[in-house]
């Protein structure tokens, strides 16, 4: 440690001395209270001395020594001491059982300084020595030993006559040592003044995951991660923080992977992630300025540790069962219905279950191998991740290969630290077709998949197709390659002043392909003989950040200052070409020139390029007094090339304060209280324009027109420019409490927030005339979100044998579109999102001031006539049902989300469950609306349709809205960690079985109530990916 400190103390207690050192450094001190809490006193007078030297002087006075692991200073006696308590030789004379053993942490490192005492007689205790060993004589063979150490969970162990007991202590999940990523730096969790939730790898969801974000599903209150496409290997989950705050701009959080902003989550394997920090409120996210509104997820990958080479393997094999498929008529039921009702149908003579024809028994396997090690100067971690995810839908899947190297090197008396991170990924994707399942539901089940001549049977209806043929003959896929490299150097110019530079390159490429075979349905309806297309895009980003850190300590006052500059440049290029009319399917899309369509003017191509820049200056000031009163202020001045020339730059300030009430003297005697901190924060964040160039007048190529017998390309303006275009502004106030009771057996946080987003980016109706184009991207209006978030961690039982607990989150959010008007624009309402063909039954949603985003708007169902025809509420009084009879019907965004995860660990067996639920929302059951109607026949229909009282073509009304409330048993995991004696030298081996999406408790009659969020929330679409239960068998080994 090269940190320098100033300490002047005369006859202080050792504890006081350590407190002073703690405030002047980023170190935590881990020690046994008994070692430090005696009445003897220490004296020290050190000016600008290395902390290591000061510690040595202090601890030598007490016969103690120390060791530094990461940022933790572990203090222990120079020699393992027996019987440091009162004399108890009398009892020893009766029972002479001596117990000895080794205490380690969960990485296998010996723990010195651990207090080991007899529970029934706490006076009889010893402290582990420098090598982590102890030896104690106990009163009886049934004595219970307690192992306790600050920062770790205490354990009770029944001796049960054993002479040797080795113990592994588990770190407190909310330990004093825990640090949190706060954006351009880290802070001790106890000193954080804004709303940040951290999830470390230990707490990740285990088992099958198509995406790393699934690892923290349900782990962070207020963060909704929704698998809108089930386990489609190529789909990303929808991620939303604290409600919908935008209409046209993105609602996705900013993802930062090892410092690279806007990282692609698929570029990091779940197994390589050390932790994810979620910056939830404005005061936390404001330092990310124009990209902070939707929250920031900081992903930190695992780094090498000092020590011997360690090898770790983790892998699993998974298979899936489709659990939710449309409940349609079987072939026999289909015939019987037609016969009974006398409706003409065609009997194709077959018995086809179309859904079964397009799903398969799939097997996916995932392997991750990592190597790590190093010495005090140089440490590294290298890993390889291979994933072969076979979709349950035929010809759907993904093969993924990722390599990653993280390297850290220190030099120049540890003043210079260099970190190099490299990651490279190739992904080979076979896309699925969501409409295939729509077709599978509605096709005549008496028709065969293939005709007797071997060709695929094809239906004749408008837009219909054979889904098996489609998945076989109209293949879509792509190969993605992405690589990231970053280099970071931190140089301590002088004490407490560090300059840092960070540079990164992030390159992503995709080469996609489409091929419709000559005999495919697309070829037939499109009027061509085979169609091939290739599309590629190239996304290149370069980043530079320079920061300076300064820290000043004046007695109990600690000030820190951070200043920085950030530059990000991005370029995106795209190119595609297609051809038609092939002689043979043999070459597919590998030889576009083989088609004759280009020569016939039936092929097309295009290319595109855009660039953008983001430049920022930022700073942070923090102040704390006695680690008790905490204050933080940040500001970011940021400019984007995408903003209009009149609004290029924006300022995003934030302030927050914390009060660690638990540190107050009046609470010093309350042993049951471990943490109580009040946090108040206010911050301004932005949301950036999606596409570049929207602020400047542009001319683009249009269609051809004729002049003098020639066809000539036309040019004209492409958009209404908006030179005033700027960011969306969100102002958020957050009040929170962190708490921990009963030795942190009950801990967590409560947050209440109010966020107002104004200057919404909205494709405003332009004044036509005099403008040319209908819309102009403008800043107008306001959305409010307010809510409550609770996080709770409980340890019900923790006695060294049983470890039982429950983690839970709860969040409530209320959303309102406050305004979409300004001086000239008087917003009435906008209806949006058309229902699909056939029929196109109008729009589903409506934006209206005073109503929440995602509000269903249509006719109110009143009843049916005797003939089964619709009766709707007639609100406007005019004859008949008109547009004016529509009304607000419900909302598809859950108001309440909760999750809870009980777990039990006993004797190497671990068992956990993860429940997730969403409440207070509605779902539009589009499937029921279309093929839940008896008039749909002779298309195949839901079984429920045959008893439906409806006898009219569908109309959109709340008849098809249902309560979406659900509770899911999302994950069950049962694992067993093998005892070391079985391992033949391996350090650690765990096998586990897990099941994903096990059960859904809901009254919703459709397939899966877990649906899209935001402006188009809660629509159970006709095209979908089947929901499955995934069964996984996994293995983790360390050696």
């Amino acid at each position: 440690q090269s940190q320098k400190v100033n300490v002047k103390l005369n006859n202080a207690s050792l504890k006081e001395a350590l407190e002073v050192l703690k405030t002047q450094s980023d170190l935590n001190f881990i020690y046994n209270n008994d070692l430090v809490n005696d009445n003897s006193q220490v004296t020290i007078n050190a000016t600008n001395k290395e902390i290591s030297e000061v510690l040595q002087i202090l601890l030598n006075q007490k016969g103690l020594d120390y060791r530094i692991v990461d940022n933790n200073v572990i203090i222990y006696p120079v020699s393992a001491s027996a019987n440091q308590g009162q004399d108890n030789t009398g009892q020893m004379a009766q029972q002479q059982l001596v117990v000895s053993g080794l205490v380690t942490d969960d990485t296998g490192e010996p723990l010195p300084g651990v207090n080991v005492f007899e529970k029934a007689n706490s006076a009889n205790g010893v402290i582990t020595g420098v090598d982590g060993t102890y030896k104690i004589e106990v009163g009886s063979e049934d004595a219970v030993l307690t192992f306790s150490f600050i920062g770790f969970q205490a354990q009770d162990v029944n001796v049960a006559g054993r002479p040797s007991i080795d113990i592994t202590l588990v770190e407190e999940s909310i330990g004093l040592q825990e640090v949190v990523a706060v954006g351009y730096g880290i802070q001790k969790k106890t000193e954080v003044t804004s709303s940040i939730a951290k999830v470390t790898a230990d707490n990740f969801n285990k088992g099958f995951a198509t995406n790393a974000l699934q690892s923290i599903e349900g782990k962070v209150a207020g963060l909704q991660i929704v698998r809108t496409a089930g386990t489609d290997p190529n789909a990303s989950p929808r991620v939303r923080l604290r409600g919908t705050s935008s209409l046209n701009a993105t609602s996705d959080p900013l993802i930062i992977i090892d410092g690279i902003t806007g990282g692609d989550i698929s570029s990091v394997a779940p197994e390589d992630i050390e932790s994810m920090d979620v910056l939830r409120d404005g005061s936390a996210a404001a330092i990310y300025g124009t990209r902070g509104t939707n929250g920031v997820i900081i992903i930190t990958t695992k780094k090498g540790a000092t020590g011997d080479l360690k090898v770790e393997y983790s892998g699993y094999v998974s298979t899936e069962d489709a659990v939710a498929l449309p409940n349609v008529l079987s072939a026999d039921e289909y015939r019987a219905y037609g016969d009974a009702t006398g409706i003409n149908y065609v009997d194709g003579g077959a018995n086809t279950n179309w859904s079964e024809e397009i799903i398969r028994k799939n097997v996916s396997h995932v392997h991750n191998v990592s190597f790590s090690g190093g010495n005090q100067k140089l440490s590294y971690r290298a890993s390889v991740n291979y994933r072969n995810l076979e979709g349950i839908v035929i010809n759907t899947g993904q093969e993924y290969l990722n390599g990653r190297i993280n390297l850290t090197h220190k030099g120049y008396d540890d003043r210079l630290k260099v970190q190099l991170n490299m990651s490279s990924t190739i992904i080979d994707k076979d896309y699925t077709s969501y409409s295939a399942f729509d077709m599978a539901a509605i096709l005549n089940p008496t028709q065969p998949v293939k005709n007797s001549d071997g060709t695929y049977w094809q239906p004749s209806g408008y837009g219909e197709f054979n889904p098996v043929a489609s998945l076989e003959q109209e293949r879509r896929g792509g190969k993605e390659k992405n690589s990231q490299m970053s280099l970071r150097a931190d140089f301590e110019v002088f004490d407490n002043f560090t300059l840092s530079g960070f540079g990164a390159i992030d390159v992503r490429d995709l080469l996609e392909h489409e091929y419709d075979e000559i005999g495919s349905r697309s070829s037939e309806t499109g009027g061509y003989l085979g169609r091939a297309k290739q599309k590629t895009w190239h996304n290149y980003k370069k980043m530079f950040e320079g920061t300076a850190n300064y820290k000043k300590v004046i007695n109990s006052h600690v000030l820190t200052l951070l200043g920085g500059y950030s530059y990000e440049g991005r370029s995106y290029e795209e190119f595609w070409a297609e051809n038609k009319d092939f002689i043979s399917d043999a070459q597919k899309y590998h030889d576009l020139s083989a088609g004759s369509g280009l020569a016939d003017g039936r092929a097309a191509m295009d290319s595109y390029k855009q660039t953008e820049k983001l430049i920022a200056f930022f700073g942070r000031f923090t102040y704390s007094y006695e680690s008790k009163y905490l204050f933080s202020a940040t500001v970011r001045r940021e400019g984007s090339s995408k903003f209009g020339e009149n609004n290029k730059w924006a300022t995003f300030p934030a302030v927050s304060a914390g009060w660690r009430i638990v540190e107050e003297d009046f609470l010093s005697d309350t042993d049951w209280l471990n943490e109580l901190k009040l946090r108040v924060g206010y911050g301004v964040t932005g949301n950036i324009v999606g596409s570049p160039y929207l602020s400047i007048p542009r001319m683009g190529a249009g269609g051809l027109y004729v002049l003098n017998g020639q066809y000539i390309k036309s040019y004209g303006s492409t958009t209404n420019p908006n030179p005033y275009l700027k960011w969306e502004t969100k102002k958020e106030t957050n009040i929170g409490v962190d708490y921990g009771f009963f030795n942190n057996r009950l801990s967590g946080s409560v947050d209440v927030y109010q966020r107002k987003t104004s200057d919404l980016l909205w494709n405003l109706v332009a004044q036509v005339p005099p403008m040319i184009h209908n819309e102009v991207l403008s800043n107008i209006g306001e959305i409010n979100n307010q809510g409550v978030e609770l996080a709770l961690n409980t340890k019900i039982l923790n006695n060294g044998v049983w470890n039982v607990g429950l983690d839970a989150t709860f969040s409530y959010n209320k959303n309102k579109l406050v305004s979409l008007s300004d001086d000239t624009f008087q917003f009435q309402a906008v209806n949006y999102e058309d229902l699909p063909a056939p029929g196109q039954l109008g729009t589903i949603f409506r934006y209206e001031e005073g109503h929440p985003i995602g509000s269903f708007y249509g006719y109110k169902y009143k009843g049916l006539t005797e003939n089964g025809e619709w009766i709707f509420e007639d609100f406007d009084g005019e004859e008949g049902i008109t547009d004016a009879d529509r009304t607000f019907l419900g909302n598809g965004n859950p108001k309440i989300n909760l999750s809870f995860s009980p777990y039990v660990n006993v004797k190497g067996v671990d068992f956990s469950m993860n429940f997730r639920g969403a409440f207070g929302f509605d779902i539009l059951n589009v499937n029921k609306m279309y093929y839940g109607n008896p008039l749909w026949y002779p298309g195949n229909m839901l079984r429920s349709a045959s008893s439906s009282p409806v006898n009219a073509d569908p109309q959109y009304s709340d008849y098809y809205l249902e309560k979406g409330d659900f509770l899911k048993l999302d994950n069950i995991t049962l694992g067993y960690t093998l005892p070391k004696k079985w391992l033949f030298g391996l350090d650690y081996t765990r096998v586990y079985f897990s099941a994903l999406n096990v059960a859904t408790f809901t009254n919703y009659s459709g397939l899966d109530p877990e649906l899209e969020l935001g402006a188009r929330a809660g629509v159970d679409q006709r095209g979908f990916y089947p929901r499955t239960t995934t069964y996984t068998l996994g293995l983790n080994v360390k050696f």
Partner: protein
Amino acid sequence: CTNLDEKVYSETTTKTFYSSAEEVTANYLKPYTRLYVTSSLAHWICGELSSDCAAWTQKGKHGYDGGKWQQLHYHTWTPEHHEIKGAWNNTYQAIGYCNEFLNNIESVDVSNMNLPVSIEQMKAEMRALRAYHYYLLVDNFRDVPVVTKVGEPRSPEPLAAADVIQFIEDEIAAVINDLPVKGDASAYGHFTKAAAHMLLAKVYLNSEVYTGTARWQDCINEVDKIQGYTMVADWKEPFKARNENCDENIFVIPFEESKITGFYHHAFMMHYSHQHGFNLQYMPWNGIVVQPDHYRSFDAADTRLEQFLVGPQFDQDGNPLLGVEEAKDEPLVLTVDITSMTNSREDEGARSVKYEVVVGEAWELNNDYVIWRYTDALMMKAEALVRLSKAADALPIVNDVRERAFGNADHNYNEATLTLDEFLAERGREFSFEGHRRQDLVRFGKFGEAWWDKKPTAGKEVFPYPLTATDNNPNLSN
């Protein structure tokens, strides 16, 4: 390190455009590329589907489309109506592109550019094309704002229809001598002198409706100035797939497969299975049908009945086409009768194929869309004569049209039979599905009457300003 200027790649900025003859020409052609949206789509859809001629019926589960077709038929549209909004926005967009050229060209030095046509002709065409689009706006909305600059003024106020008409007349008067004439290399597909006269004739024909002042003689005078066009012998010729050189067509939108695209009326009208009947390279939508009364307004001997598909339908080998929905796998027989606007079957309703559909047709038609043709000019003159009580002068014109349709003089009118009602009916037959019907019904005072599934309505002769326009312009309100 703080430079945030944007650099464009796939487009160019307005600042640097107009640097060559090619760039100037490209911008001058831009408004023309919007003609199909303003004329063969927006104006045609609003005009025909609100009339007694065409309808987009609901067929089983198909064709509801948010109720917008029914609203057009029943005249129950609101300011939110999608197609009415399209008629406003698209027309003003075309005007905006004309303004863009006229505004920007002022500061461009073209003296050293080798332009394919003179800059005076370009400007004249832009101003005439802009005037044409103001005529469409007056026809649909009456009082509308007139703007001649992109982006200015903010919140323009509507001008009385009479003033808009005055603007059109002034503009045409100012530019008519610079417009191309039939026979010029640049005339095809462009706004010609004859089109300018036709525009004024249309304005004068409807002047009483637009402004309250009838100008029948002005209409006749303008028609008489249209030179070089004839009524061709075969009424089908103006609509053939290769109708580029038809001497009857005054103003067309030139369409050419894979070059100038956007004409797909046949997709609106034909049945799904006509894909197999005509070996089309796409599946039509089975949307717009012929109202039964319109079909029945034709005499059985009228050859113009051949523009409709009705009865059993066959493929090129003579095999019957089959239904796919309510008539699934039954032979497809198109009926003249239709149950109702809201409740019909896939096989109900005759279909208009006035524009020749070639077997093996691609998605886009090759036929040029006829905005105005000479027979219309003649019939306008005849109508003006009738209204000026000169029916005797009108008779030969109308009877020429009748004789062409029937191939003989047996069905000719005389002064007694050529009533105004009959005149309207004959216009309906001759210009069936050509996008003039709403205007004709309004001019004859019949637009509010009941027909087929529609009940009598009042005050629907003018479409409301779309909600989007009134939302964002405090000077516009319905």
